[in-house]
């Protein structure tokens, strides 16, 4: 009995030591983001100086910085809203009808969305937008995001619809409501959680996205934050670290806040194997 306790203690020591090391590995690189923005003389070092909000004051005077935040919101919001609506419509049809090529369509969606990543398709996507005359417009980025995020959203929301028994709408129809009433009065309220999950999933993913705006946008005043952050350099090519760190922190806040909300409300875990 005594022996068993000692091995437990010894095991616990190792468990906590490894955990501590892992925590250090993950937390040390983050320190800069928490400390540098409030430093009066920001550098690449993690140094605690007298706290100051100067960097943020400077940042709010920077027109490009403010504009980029607006651009990021425009791009992420529009993509999120359009994907959420169109994916819910499509998923509802795929969940409630059984036409001949339904499974083929689902398989094709799954296959193409797995194979065709933004990276693999950066060249044809650029050429497509060039031919459509969309280069350097928000629409190019928004359309590419919509096409890219739709399949995943359809699969997530379809899982939610599949879990709602068909009897509900059938009963409603028998009682005299129209199919669209069935959708709006029965399905929508019951699948609210799914709707919120995909909306947040798309918002968080498009918010941080770099490659597509980087390739498709040309004018500085259209850049979202992920690309505009590149412009914070002095004329000598040195990064303006005060601005940069403050900006990085502000840019990260929306996703961190959304994460906290999801975690509180639903628990952050796996929905059908996807993040959400």
């Amino acid at each position, binding site marked *: 009995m005594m022996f068993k306790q000692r091995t437990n203690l010894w095991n616990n020591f190792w468990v906590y030591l*490894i955990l501590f090391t*892992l925590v250090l*590995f*993950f937390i*040390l*690189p*983050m320190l800069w983001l928490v400390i540098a923005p409030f430093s009066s003389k920001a550098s*690449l*070092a*993690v140094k605690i100086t007298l706290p100051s909000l100067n960097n943020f004051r400077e940042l709010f005077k920077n027109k490009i910085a403010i504009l980029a935040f607006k651009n990021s919101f425009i791009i992420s919001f529009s993509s999120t809203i359009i994907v959420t609506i*169109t994916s819910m*419509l*499509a998923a509802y*049809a795929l969940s*409630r*009808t059984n036409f001949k090529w339904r499974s083929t369509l689902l*398989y*094709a969606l*799954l*296959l193409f969305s797995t*194979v*065709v990543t*933004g*990276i*693999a*398709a*950066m*060249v*044809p*996507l*650029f*050429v*497509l937008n060039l031919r459509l005359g969309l280069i350097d417009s928000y629409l190019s980025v928004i*359309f590419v995001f*919509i*096409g890219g995020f*739709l*399949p995943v959203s*359809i699969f997530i929301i379809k899982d939610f619809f599949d879990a709602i028994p*068909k009897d509900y*709408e*059938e009963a409603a129809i028998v009682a005299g409501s129209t*199919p669209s009433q069935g959708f709006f009065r029965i399905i929508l309220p019951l699948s609210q959680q799914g709707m919120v999950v995909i909306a947040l999933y798309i918002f968080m993913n498009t*918010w*941080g996205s*770099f*490659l597509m705006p980087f*390739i498709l946008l040309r004018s500085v005043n259209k850049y979202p934050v*992920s690309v505009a*952050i590149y412009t914070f350099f002095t004329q000598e090519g040195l990064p303006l670290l005060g601005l940069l*760190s403050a900006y*990085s922190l502000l*840019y990260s806040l929306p*996703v*961190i806040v959304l*994460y906290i909300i999801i*975690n509180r409300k639903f628990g952050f*875990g796996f929905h059908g*194997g996807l*993040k959400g």
Partner: protein
Amino acid sequence: MFEGGIILSKKRAFLFILPALAFVTVFLIFPAIWAIYIGLTNESLTGIYGLNHQFVWFDNFIKAFKDPWFHSSLQISFKFVFGSLVGQAGLGLLLALLLNNKKGILKELVSNIVIIAWIVPGVVVAYLWVAFLDKDFGLLNSILGILGFARVNWFHTLPVGVIIIFNTWRGTAFSMLLFMAALQSIPPSYLETADVIGASGWRKLRDIIIPLIKPQILTDLILLTLWTFNVFTPFILTKGGPAHMTEILPIYNYRVAFMGIGRIGQGAAISTIILLINLTLALIYLKMLKRK
């Protein structure tokens, strides 16, 4: 009495699917197929082939296979994917095992930190690592300095190592969450029985836990391979340098297609190769899904 069509007529179902299908067809399926065609032309962003390009058959593919930078980027991609795979799946499993029976603040704290590293925008993560690894001011070298080690220019000494560790740091959360869910599904009685017969922690891991979560491990590995192969964030950290040493295939593709005169045709040929590699990985993954 009620078959398929009662809730939604076929016509209405089609109308419901149409908007999504249109977006997916134009901005996802069509570009992939078009890449193959562009890859067979000598289109360029600027210069004489900007406007009237010609069909050159497989010239771009032959050129790619003759280009030493293509081969080196393939090799770097392979190292990058393999290293990240070991790092992410390894750390993810380790974290899931260590946190499995823990409760309360410790588990919350550790998993939240790992997840925040995953959800913060890639550009921010890249800057964090630029600061952390900086030769003169970076926190890592400062700590090593206190411990009596010399300063290291990490980006020059260990270029591929840097992007692997950077990517591991960023992506471990996915494996951790997947394995946490998998471990929850193991009936506690299995492990209790093992305790009764006095099995060591290692034996429990090897003989009970690993075999039981094998499907999740395989899923994790194949998805990580696919995702890591399709990652562009190292570009923000290193721009592919120094001296092309961190130029993974996506960065090579970007450089060929958009830098210099912008060899779009050549770039599309490389895109086609990436698409084919993705297709192979995706088919393996879908086959595994079906078996489950």
